[in-house]
């Protein structure tokens, strides 16, 4: 077995790091997508969970149907569907973009904050995350127990007031461990936008490989960046959780 003669990993790493500005731009875009997708998933997920748990026969079923379908199908297929939908319906999407750039260490770093591709990617990620978050919220709502809502109504609160002031505050606290899980790992899923040409961290890695022909080191570097980011987010949320604890909740 002959292992090819090649420059040492450190040497390779240094070559790859010459492209740090592109990699960094990719990282920023990944984070940008992550934050928006997480927020969208949070609000939509919360609505879906409430509809599924407290909505009438009709709304509850629609919500359940949405959740089960999104969770039962690949994110990639969902992304392609959303991305190609306008063109299949002959709706023009235009060639527009909103971007921002700044200069760091003499390098110009530009990221496209929003254009059609980015929007499609965001929507797909947000709609997808919403379905998963909805299940976490629903689990938390159920764990609060029916007695709480009963007690709220027994002092004259309407069902909606009871849900808003008594059930949800408790559910949102109880959901933190499971939700932190989703929040910490969502960055992983944003890479899917690579398939529609959004210049996220993975795309930039790919591009760097095209220029340097150094694949293993580059991809390993990207993997490490993801790992570190996810670990930091996870630990950060843990600390937040400990700081906001209420006895017994």
């Amino acid at each position, binding site marked *: 077995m002959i292992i090819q003669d090649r420059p040492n990993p450190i040497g390779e790493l240094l070559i790859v790091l010459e492209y740090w500005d592109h990699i960094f731009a990719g990282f920023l875009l990944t984070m940008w997508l992550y934050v928006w997708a997480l927020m969208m998933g949070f609000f939509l997920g919360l609505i879906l969970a409430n509809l599924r748990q407290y909505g009438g026969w009709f709304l509850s079923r629609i919500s359940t149907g949405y959740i089960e379908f999104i969770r039962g199908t690949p994110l990639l297929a969902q992304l392609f569907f959303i991305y190609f939908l306008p063109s299949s319906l002959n709706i023009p999407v235009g060639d527009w973009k909103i971007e921002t750039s700044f200069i760091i260490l003499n390098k110009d770093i530009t990221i496209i904050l929003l254009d059609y591709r980015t929007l499609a990617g965001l929507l797909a990620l947000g709609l997808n995350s919403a379905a998963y978050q909805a299940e976490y919220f629903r689990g938390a709502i159920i764990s609060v127990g029916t*007695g*709480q809502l*009963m*007690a*709220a*109504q*027994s*002092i*004259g*609160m*309407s069902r909606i*007031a009871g849900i808003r*002031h*008594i059930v949800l*505050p*408790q559910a949102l*606290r109880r959901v933190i461990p499971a939700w932190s899980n989703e929040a910490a790992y969502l960055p992983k899923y944003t890479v899917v936008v690579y398939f529609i040409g959004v210049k996220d961290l993975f795309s930039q890695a790919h591009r760097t490989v095209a220029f340097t022909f150094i694949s293993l080191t580059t991809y390993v570097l990207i993997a490490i960046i993801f790992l570190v980011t996810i670990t930091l987010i996870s630990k950060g949320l843990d600390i937040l959780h400990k700081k906001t604890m*209420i*006895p*017994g*909740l």
Partner: protein
Amino acid sequence: MQVLKGVSFELGEGEVKVVFGPSGSGKSTLLRCINMLSPPDKGEVYLRGQNIKAPEVNINEMRARIGMVFQHFNLFAHLKAIDNVSIGLRRVKGFPKEEAREKALEVLDSVKMDEWADRYPAELSGGQQQRVGIARALAMDPDVILFDEPTSALDPELIGEVLQVMLDLAKSGTTMIVVTHEMGFAKAVASEMIFLGEGVIIERGTPEHFFISPKSERVQNFLQQLDVLYGSHEKLLK
């Protein structure tokens, strides 16, 4: 599945009715019919002459006038004791924050829980939690308070403090319907006792009637069993 098969009674101001009977007889369901948490399929409920089942009636307003104390306390776990008591005043009755807090403290004081006002339910014992639960219902100045087996989930040594609060309430003229097996309590303050079995009233009467000469053998047996289990609780009452 029909739980209650024909129950009817009246409750006067300041009366204390004790409802008891075997499990499955519909006692809890009865209470939940009264405050419409589980509206009766047939039959009506009148609060001070007003039919609260009528569609034009705002059921939340009615519930604010009917208090409930639960077997498992159901205190709002994310709120401190004082907030548990004041939230109804603030959100349902529209009291301003300060006034609500003051009144809540007063009520907590009456159940001897004022020192624990800033504690969370998880930090309180069962008996303490239940007293806060009573305070929460009391704070709304209800026309009547429903008690659903308030001491059944408590450890024996904690039952006394809750029964004492209930006794004081009864003696001070609060209108109460109490589902319980604490016969000592019934003996002390009940104006009428109702024995519920299989969804119907099997016997009703004053405590004296029940403890001296109950009519049905079934009730006699039941009371004997209760005495075996709960007889010693009379010592808990001062």
